[in-house]
């Protein structure tokens, strides 16, 4: 019974922590522009993150090597350092965007001035991470993130055309001109990238070691990563459906975070609106924490410094300086007034560009018998992972040209 509760809690946490600012905005915008035509990008991204997250967890458990130890091992020190710098820069930008989003949501919930909410919220978040152990951080924000289910309830309530929704499972072209086609490709890459953001796997593999998973926990790794991501992807589909039903007929392109809560208020009312805002708050706060901690994990794992979120911060000074430094720098960036959505747009596309350098080392480590013994990746998963790496490389090459051609996704 205890095991079942633990497993359910793990799945719920994975579901609650799956969605972040980039996913909320990109998928709603995609729905507002192309109705259900990009659901296939969510399915593709969902399968990819499922495969790679399972591999990350397995490598961490079997070889006791989290992602950046693997990156150093597989890419060598030079390319490894470049990947580390790029990944941490990406974490910094994402963290700044998520902190900015926290301030917006707090203002919408309470009416407090956004600047005050940003500074107080950023400092409070830092204090929470300082005080709490890994599992508490993960569970608190993950479970609070379950409030996002209200978006799925709203989508269901608005009675979508399920035949059209199912039609979106197959890639189709938007054929209203070349601009529409590039915009369609940009959003396909954006959705795919938002689902595969690197910090998620950095955090997940570090978490497997923080929580002292052993070989016995490998089935739990598979169940949690698969179920959590399937449910999280369904939630992401609900966001896209809401964009298609509420925004598309009104010619709205949701370019403000606050606008993304309107589709919940419209059919369900005030209480649902508050729940939606709490859900968004949990998602962005969770992502802010994960990106800050990931920066610390990455540096320490790459250089072999001691890291552990379950001991006093003073016992692991380099780790503590790395994550607090990231949080403080991100707060400074957010205070300058840069819009969170501008930052998140950039971080998603930039994240796509460096993605192959994170996922290739994981793939090769997980299939290496010398490292993994009898727990090497099976043939089917290995073949699928190579196919998805190919897709990741193509998307990485296309990301920046598409961003330039569409002026960062402007309709």
């Amino acid at each position, binding site marked *: 019974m205890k095991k079942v509760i633990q497993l359910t809690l793990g799945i719920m946490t994975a579901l609650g922590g799956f969605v972040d600012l980039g996913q909320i905005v990109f998928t709603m915008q995609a729905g507002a522009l192309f109705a259900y035509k990009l659901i296939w990008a969510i399915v593709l991204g969902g399968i990819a993150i499922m495969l790679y997250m399972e591999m990350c967890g397995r490598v961490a458990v079997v070889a006791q090597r989290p992602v950046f130890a693997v990156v150093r091992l597989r890419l060598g020190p030079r390319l490894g350092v470049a990947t580390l710098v790029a990944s941490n820069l990406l974490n910094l930008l994402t963290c700044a965007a998520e902190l900015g989003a926290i301030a*917006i949501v707090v*203002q*919408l*919930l*309470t*009416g407090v001035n956004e600047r005050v909410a940003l500074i107080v919220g950023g400092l409070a978040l830092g204090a929470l991470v300082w005080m709490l152990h890994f599992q508490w951080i993960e569970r608190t924000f993950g479970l609070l993130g379950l409030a996002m289910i209200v978006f799925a309830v709203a989508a269901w309530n608005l009675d979508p055309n399920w035949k059209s929704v199912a039609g979106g499972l197959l890639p189709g072209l938007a054929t209203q001109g070349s*601009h529409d086609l590039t915009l369609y490709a940009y959003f396909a890459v954006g959705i795919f990238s938002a689902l595969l953001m690197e910090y998620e796997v950095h955090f997940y593999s570090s978490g497997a070691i923080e929580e002292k998973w052993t070989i016995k926990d490998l089935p739990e790794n598979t169940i949690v990563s698969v179920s959590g991501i399937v449910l999280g992807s369904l939630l992401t589909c609900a966001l896209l459906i809401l964009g298609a039903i*509420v925004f598309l007929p*009104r*010619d*709205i*392109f*949701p*370019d*403000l975070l*606050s*606008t993304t*809560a*309107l589709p919940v*208020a*419209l059919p*369900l*009312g*005030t209480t649902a*609106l*508050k729940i939606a*805002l709490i859900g968004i708050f949990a998602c962005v706060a969770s992502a802010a924490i994960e990106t800050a901690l990931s920066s610390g994990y990455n540096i320490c794992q790459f250089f072999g410094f001691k890291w552990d979120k379950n001991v006093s911060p003073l016992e692991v000074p380099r780790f503590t300086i790395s994550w607090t430094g990231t949080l403080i720098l991100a707060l400074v960036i957010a205070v300058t007034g840069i819009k969170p959505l501008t930052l998140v747009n950039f971080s998603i596309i930039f994240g796509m560009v460096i993605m192959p350098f994170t996922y290739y080392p994981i793939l090769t480590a997980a299939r290496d018998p010398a490292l993994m013994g009898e727990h090497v990746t099976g043939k089917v998963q290995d073949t699928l992972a190579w196919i998805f790496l190919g897709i990741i490389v193509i998307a990485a090459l296309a990301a920046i040209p598409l961003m330039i051609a569409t*002026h960062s996704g*402007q*309709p």
Partner: protein
Amino acid sequence: MRQWVSAPAALLLLVACSGGSVVKHEELASEMKQIRSLDAEGALLWEIVLSRHSTHAFARGEASYLHEAAKEHQRKLARARAAQGAERELERTRAAALGLIERIIALRLQIQ
């Protein structure tokens, strides 16, 4: 060394002094779409407020973000220079941005 520093500085100065960017037909069409989108967002917010599906803090916050976004478009268009043949379109887009600001101010007053 001095050349390396002064060349980008001169370029920056040139860009800063050259006024707004030249906008073509496609960019103006995109601006117009975004202005109409903000207008529609305002209308949707008002629909939600009227049906008592929103909290006061949310409605005020959303309206103020819409106002900020509208002002940004207006500022951008005020600085812009039209490409050849797009002068009348630029004027129309500027007028649409001003109209949007007026409607959002009215919305904010109604929500207060």
